[in-house]
């Protein structure tokens, strides 16, 4: 008597081959369903990588202000006046490294027959150097802190856009500064001792169009002895929150306290939630594409009822049938996901490089370019998700196929 046992399972390679032949047979429908999955997974990759990229870009930009810096400004409507006594007081808060009082005002600089608009930053140039190590001297040197006549200029002040003028500013040359004034503009001349290197866009002020002058020079220019604001540099980022609370205790509602690190955490959490939100929308689109797979698979199972009967008659088990159809759906997801990776990477890089054309940042409206954060984890994760959606969508049609009565299936016309 013959013994049962030993029918080998269908070879996976054959399952792949068989599924591909079925997908090829209904080429048009397959292409459309695959495209649906590809667009869905491409969107996930593009939106998430751009969101992450935007996060990184904004973080970098915010950190140009220094994560461990705090700016103390008089609150609107408050008549608080910052003096050296305030500087001394703040200096005594534990964890404070540098306290730099400063003046800041809009101004125009006359360079080579043209006028550059920007800002005056009246601050101790050496303190500035400590607080913003990123600001570097390109030519010359920083002004002497006690000087009332020396200035250092931002890159764009020294080198106005080529379209406007071909001339530039040299170290040692005089610079004419015009301050708008209710009683008519006030013009003063200073000596340029240094030119700063390019700094890039920042949040509160544009270092490249700024002119930095020592406190005495600013006092002479503005005729004002009280400081406009105070920059507090902390020893460590972790101390920022504590020092802010100390400052709040000291000044109450009389001041506004701004810190890049607290802004940063807010902005980052906003961008992160936005990225998650967009990712969810893209995921929904992938699930909708999954419904497309389900639809074509159900149609396919109906059209191939006789085929199912034949497969059962030659010895396929219900489980074999289930896997055959499930695999077809999974393969649709896989191919869609793979194409989706291509679409996603192309979209993120394309959009990222184009982003500079409409994304502007900071007071200088510097174009910012998002460098999409395309990680292997994102690509692999999305691919697996597409395969998962494909399999999930195939489950019901495949079950239907598996439960088809072979006798009825063979009778179907």
């Amino acid at each position, binding site marked *: 008597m013959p013994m049962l046992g030993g029918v080998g399972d*269908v070879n996976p390679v054959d399952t792949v081959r068989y599924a591909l032949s079925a997908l090829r047979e209904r080429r048009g429908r397959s292409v459309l369903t695959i495209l649906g999955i590809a667009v869905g997974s491409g969107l996930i990759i593009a939106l998430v990588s751009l969101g992450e990229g935007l996060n990184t870009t904004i973080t970098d930009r915010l950190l140009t202000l220094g994560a461990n810096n705090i700016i103390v400004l008089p609150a609107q409507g408050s008549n608080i006046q910052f003096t050296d006594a305030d500087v001394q007081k703040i200096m005594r808060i534990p964890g404070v490294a540098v306290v730099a009082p400063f003046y800041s005002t809009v101004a125009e600089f006359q360079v080579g027959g043209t006028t550059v608009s920007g800002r005056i930053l009246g601050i101790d140039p050496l303190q500035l150097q400590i607080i913003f190590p990123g600001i570097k001297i390109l030519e010359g040197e920083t002004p002497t802190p006690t000087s009332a006549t020396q200035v250092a200029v931002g890159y764009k002040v020294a080198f106005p856009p080529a379209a406007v003028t071909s001339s530039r500013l040299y170290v040692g040359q005089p610079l004419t500064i015009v301050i708008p004034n209710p009683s008519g503009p006030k013009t003063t001349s200073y000596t340029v001792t240094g030119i700063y290197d390019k700094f890039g866009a920042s949040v509160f002020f544009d270092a490249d169009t700024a002119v930095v002058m020592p406190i005495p020079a600013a006092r002479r220019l503005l005729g004002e002895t009280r400081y406009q604001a105070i920059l507090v540099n902390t020893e460590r980022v972790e101390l920022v929150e504590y020092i802010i609370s100390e400052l709040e205790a000291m000044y109450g509602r009389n001041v506004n306290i701004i810190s890049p690190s607290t802004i940063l955490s807010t902005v980052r959490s906003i961008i992160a939630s936005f990225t998650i939100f967009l990712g969810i929308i893209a995921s929904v689109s992938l699930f909708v594409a999954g419904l497309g797979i389900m639809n074509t698979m159900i149609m396919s199972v109906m059209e191939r009822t006789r085929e199912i009967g034949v497969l059962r008659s030659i*010895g396929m088990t219900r489980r074999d049938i289930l896997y055959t159809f499930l695999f077809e759906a999974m393969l649709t997801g896989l191919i869609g996901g793979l194409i989706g990776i291509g679409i996603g990477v192309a979209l993120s890089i394309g959009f990222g490089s184009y982003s500079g054309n409409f994304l502007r940042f900071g007071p200088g409206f510097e174009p910012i370019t998002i460098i999409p954060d395309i990680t292997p984890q994102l690509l692999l994760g999305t691919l697996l998700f597409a395969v998962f959606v494909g399999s999930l969508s195939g489950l019901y049609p495949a079950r239907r196929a598996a439960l088809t009565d072979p006798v009825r299936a063979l009778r179907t016309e």
Partner: protein
Amino acid sequence: MESDGDYAIVLEDVWKVYKTGKTEYPALRGLTLSVKSGEMVSIMGPSGSGKSTLLHIAGTLDRPTKGRVSIYGIDTSRLDDSKLSEIRNRFIGFVFQSYNLINRLSALNNVSLPLAVRGVPLQERQAAALEALKLVGLEHFANKKPTELSGGEQQRVAIARGLVGRPRILLADEPTGNLDTKNAVAIMEILRNINKTLGTTIVIVTHNPEIAEKCDRIVRLRDGRVESEVILHA
């Protein structure tokens, strides 16, 4: 005394009742039939007499409502789907009236499908499929799609598919039903030849007396039971 093992197929008091809603329709009513190993039997009878149902039950595609079915001594009543599928794959080949080839696959791949289900490696099963196509005289059509073949040729491919796994039993449901006389005769010659040279047990359901006469025995069904039997060749 003979045991079930001497028989290719034993059906004993087999009932098959189809239910549609509240109405019950008994397609087989206590049918008893034994087919010897190596025998070539034709099943005849009017429409609705249970011919196809008998073939499906003997081929383990369907289960009887009541009664015993034994294939080469194996009682199939207690076997699960996977074991029954295995029996179909190893012991039984099917040939259908409408060929039932898979149109997107070449003749060769259609024929080798049962071996793919068995897990036979590609080269081995293609060689076997080519051998089976040779048996039906279609080795030169191996790479043609079913749609490129005539009805007679498609049925020969289907027979090759039924034979490729070297089953002991070939069950044919009106194999010549869609063919003209010339092709029908050719198919019968092939089946007869297979029965003689390979010793394959063949059961053919047919309406055609000329076909039936080529078999060893004619079994006539009526109302789900064996009405009469005629032995033509001992």
